[in-house]
């Protein structure tokens, strides 16, 4: 089986990111998963165990003092080193801020080809074929890199299976200090982990609020329904622009693309840019006062009504049910 190199973006606190599970699952379908990590010191045995549990057959553990003080380059160096050492048939990285930059830079260094933001990848006739969901899910496109190393970024939350666990064989390598001009990381501010609510990307249920909520205070209603349904919280761009919630919650063309089992849109009119980020949801429910809101054109169940009347009743009924 050919090796598949997988970039695992360990955080500066040593955490394995949520994207690792899906990346290793795809890698296991295509070959033997080789996890590439970058750390300042020796790799924590807990990290090795976690990556093994997620299917890493090998770990290419790169060490450099610059792991968390120089932006990006240590990851690119580690990947290039792993490509030379393991002669993989593909490289996978998350389509995250760091992952895609590392993927692009690696492609230039290795002369590889890039397949970006894929939602799935498989082997067909001995070649790796990627699936892309284009223009907000309006098209499904299959692509391949025929002649050179395919470097693939995988959309977070798009893959939800898990590879069989393995006991990883760990190779530790020391990276040479980066040469040339670099970007320095001076400090980190980690977002507080919200353990009580799922992450927006990959959540099975998403409750989103729009301008119809009217204010930041009223937006709590969205969070209350999300908590009653065990859902992640999203928002339309109008709600973000109005300051009801931070941009990281934005669902749509210029925000996060989600494909949950259930998407509940509260006070969202359904501009085409918003629909592009959620129309691949399995079931869509919309509540909006405006009966002509375009969101109703794609909702499986549309309620023309006041969110401030209907939603508290729904929360109450859900409570009684449990």
């Amino acid at each position, binding site marked *: 089986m050919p090796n598949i190199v997988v970039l695992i973006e360990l955080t500066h606190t040593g955490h394995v990111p949520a994207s690792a599970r899906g990346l290793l699952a795809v890698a296991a379908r295509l070959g033997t998963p080789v996890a590439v990590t970058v750390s300042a010191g020796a790799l924590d045995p807990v990290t090795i165990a976690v990556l093994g549990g997620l299917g890493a057959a090998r770990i290419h553990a790169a060490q450099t003092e610059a792991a968390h003080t120089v932006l990006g380059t240590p990851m690119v160096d580690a990947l290039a080193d792993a490509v030379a050492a393991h002669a993989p048939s593909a490289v996978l990285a998350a389509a995250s*801020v760091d992952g895609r930059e590392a993927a692009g830079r690696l492609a*230039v260094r290795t002369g590889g080809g*890039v397949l*970006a933001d894929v939602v799935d990848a498989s082997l067909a006739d001995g070649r790796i074929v990627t699936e892309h969901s284009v223009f907000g899910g309006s098209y499904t496109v299959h692509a391949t890199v025929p002649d050179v190393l395919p470097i693939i970024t995988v959309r977070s939350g798009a893959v939800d299976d898990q590879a069989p666990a393995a006991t990883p064989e760990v190779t530790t390598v020391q990276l040479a200090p980066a040469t040339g001009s670099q970007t320095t990381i001076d400090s980190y501010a980690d977002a507080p982990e919200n353990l009580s609510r799922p992450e927006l990307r990959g959540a099975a249920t998403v409750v989103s609020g729009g301008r119809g909520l009217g204010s930041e205070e009223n937006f709590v209603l969205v969070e209350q329904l999300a908590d009653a349904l065990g859902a992640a919280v999203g928002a339309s761009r109008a709600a973000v622009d109005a300051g009801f919630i931070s941009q990281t919650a934005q669902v749509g063309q210029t925000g996060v693309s989600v494909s949950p089992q259930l998407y509940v849109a509260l006070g969202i009119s359904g501009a085409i840019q918003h629909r592009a980020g959620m129309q691949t949801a399995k079931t869509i429910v919309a*509540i909006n006062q405006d009966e002509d809101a375009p969101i109703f054109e794609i909702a499986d169940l549309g*309620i023309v009504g006041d969110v401030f009347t209907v939603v508290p009743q729904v929360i109450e009924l859900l409570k009684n049910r449990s």
Partner: protein
Amino acid sequence: MKIVVLIKQVPDTAEERRLEPDTGRLDRDANEPVIDEITERALELALTVKDKDKSTEVVVLTMGPSEASKAIRKALSMGADSGIHVLDDALSGADLTITSAALAAALRNTDADLVIAGNESTDGRAGIVPAMIAEHLGYPLLGSLLSADITHGMVTGERQTEAGTQNVRAPFPAVLTVTEGFDEARFPNFKGIMGAKRKPVATLSASELGVGSTPRSSVLDLAERPARAAGRKIVDGGAAAAELVDFLTAQRLI
């Protein structure tokens, strides 16, 4: 200081966007092309630097068909000093590899102190081309910034990642990309529109740039997803909440 801003002409996200069924390429006739808003924000950042220091030169660079010259003209009317248009039929259907190689080659001769781009385009959404350009040029990359402070040969900024934020800095020359955290672009005024006509725009071909035009990646097939049909719509007369909970129960969603 010299700043080159990468702008991209894309189909308007407010309209339906289409692919050509045979090639998988963008159907350019289906939709009115506009400058991608995120690259307008990149231009706005450059123009803000110029507002403070009039000696700053702002150049816009794009690759695209002849139609893309309209995007350059608009950028010039907003306040950019000159434009560079990578224009060659041989580059039609270019992938990330060709696009980044061509743009990097065009940048190599500009002596830019700073290259500013959007973090990801609304059409391809790869978010990769600026990183590839940085690697081609050997420049440090400050990707997905929420804010930027550009002074004295140095960029500092706050960067959004999955785990939180980071404060980063790099010396010139550097590539930085902006997110939606940056200001929307200014509108061109009458003086700007009139002045834009006299500003220079250079055109470069693939052979002048010394880049090939054979893509590394190829589209195998594409399928249009069927449009979603509207489901049941009810007007709340007091029972809608109960109907919703019943619906979710029946669909096994709760």
